């Protein structure tokens, strides 16, 4: 029961932090950075459910992000559909794509999902580049309207920040509740022993498909929010490099931990902003920090916090029950 209370406490603390953070920052530019950090966090929380809990690797989540972004952009800017429709369509296209990839690959054991998603990421990238009439090709797609829901336009960066922060909080809540149930146990069971999971009556193909599609839906959702924030999307934002960055965020934050996804995404999105000052040696310092993190925090940032404080954010071990 206190696992539940711990989740509630963590969520409340996080929501409060999201609320006050803009007032602690020296200028508006950091709000902009945090929006991107939160968008990445939405994707990485989903990716953590897939990789950290269910043990399935996706090398193509950038593609689902891109599908969400482009679909909503085209639906609203090219076809003039209302924003709500763009949002739903953006998520739906990501979901359908994931479903179609997942059905054949997730029935197989082994790293077929990683290979298939690697391929899909590359195909999506080529698609965004080549279908110039539809997507604007390498030059990008411009003129995407700002997000407007229920008559309210999220015009200022601050309002958009609160929107994205709110969505992220809900995504975290959703994920924590999902994990703290028989579904979460089934996913973790699949991760360690597919045989034993099946014997316990767990339909492993269905659960893997479900969590893969769910993580794609999170990525699609983030993509929609991204497109209507920036007003401009280009294929380079959704390539293989971005998919790998997402995985690094997941590993660095702590894979089998919902909060780890948030920590990793925020850390790795904000870090380059601070390293700008070092100009030429920026990449070296970035790489160095990653190496140090992996050496000293094998279970990621969230795992490190657990070790230091004995508190396991959102996790379920030893003291979580009593």
């Amino acid at each position, binding site marked *: 029961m206190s696992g*539940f209370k711990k989740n509630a406490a963590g969520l409340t603390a996080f929501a409060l932090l999201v609320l006050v953070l803009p007032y602690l920052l020296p200028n508006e530019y950091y709000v902009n950075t945090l929006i991107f950090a939160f968008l990445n966090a939405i994707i990485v929380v989903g990716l953590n459910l897939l990789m950290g809990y269910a043990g399935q690797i996706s090398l193509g989540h950038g593609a689902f992000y891109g599908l969400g972004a482009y679909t909503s952009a085209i639906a609203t800017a090219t076809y003039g559909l209302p924003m709500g429709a763009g949002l739903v369509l953006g998520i739906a296209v990501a979901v359908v794509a994931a479903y179609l990839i997942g059905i054949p690959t997730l029935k197989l054991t082994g790293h077929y999902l990683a290979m298939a998603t690697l391929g899909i990421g590359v195909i999506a990238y080529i698609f965004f580049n080549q279908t110039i009439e539809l997507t604007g090709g390498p030059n990008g797609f411009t003129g995407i309207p700002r997000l407007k829901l229920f008559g309210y336009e999220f015009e200022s960066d601050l309002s958009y920040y609160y929107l994205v922060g709110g969505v992220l909080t809900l995504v975290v809540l*959703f994920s924590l*509740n*999902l994990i*703290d*149930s*028989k*579904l979460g*146990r*089934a996913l*973790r*069971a699949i*991760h*360690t*022993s597919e*045989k*034993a*999971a*099946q*014997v*316990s*009556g*767990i*339909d*492993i193909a269905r659960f893997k498909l479900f969590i893969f599609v769910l993580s794609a839906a999170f990525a699609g959702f983030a993509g929609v929010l991204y497109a209507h924030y920036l007003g401009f999307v280009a294929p380079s934002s959704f390539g293989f490099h971005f998919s790998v960055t997402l995985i690094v965020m997941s590993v660095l934050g702590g894979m*089998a931990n919902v909060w780890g996804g948030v920590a990793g995404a925020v850390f790795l999105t904000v870090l380059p902003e601070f390293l700008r000052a070092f100009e030429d040696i920026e990449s070296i310092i970035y790489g160095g920090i990653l190496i140090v993190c992996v050496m000293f925090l094998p279970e990621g940032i969230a795992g490190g916090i657990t070790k230091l404080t004995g508190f396991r954010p959102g996790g*379920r*071990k*030893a*003291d*979580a*029950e*009593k």
Partner: protein
Amino acid sequence: MPKNNHALLSCQGVTVRFGGVTALDHVDFLAPKGNITSIIGPNGAGKTTLLNAVTGLVGTTGGAIEFAGRDIAALPPFRRGLAGVVRTFQNLEIFSNMSVLENVMTGCHRHVRYSMLDCLFKTPRYRREEKRCRDVAGEKLTFMGLADKKHLPATDLPFGSQRLLELARALAADPELLLLDEPAAGLNMKETRNLSRIIQRITQELKITIVLVEHDMDLVMHISDRVMVLNYGRTIAEGTPKEVQKNPDVVTAYLGEDEDE
């Protein structure tokens, strides 16, 4: 003699081939309800393959597998689990990323009834079912004598206790048929005696039918109602422990042919 004639599990002519190797060759096997039926035989005889065939982890090339009067040979493994056929593994298959309690709660999977919406909104039904699942899991751990270990990470348990944990997880599914694949492998004498008592209590108190694959002959002969002997994928003997022990084919299979013959 079987305690009653009703067979909970009945395999007829089960054949399994791996490429050119015939691992099981038209094997007939009955597990009467409420009994402990053991399968013995030299290494490579096909004992584990038979359990795999019954649980669906390997496909059969021929034969029928009937469980509670229903042919399950074509069902995927998880459907057989849902139907009440549960097993343990020779090489432990503990969920290493969970606590002891969570391992056993995962075993309850088929009896926990709530939808995804229930868990997202933590409805009363979710809370009730989770509590029930936790209670059942705790009960099974008490049965195994692991109640005080329930909050430990599963991998912190010593080997013998991990075997019992796997057994607790299987029991949490409240199976009708429990298949044990060499549960005594790697246990010391004291642990084996404890295991022997536990297996007997499972049939007597929980009324669960057991199929046991085991190399420890003392254990097998002591607790089994019936014994089947496999060699090279074929049944070479079947009967009560006493009958099987005296069977000359069994002696040959285990000790080899007499050189004079």
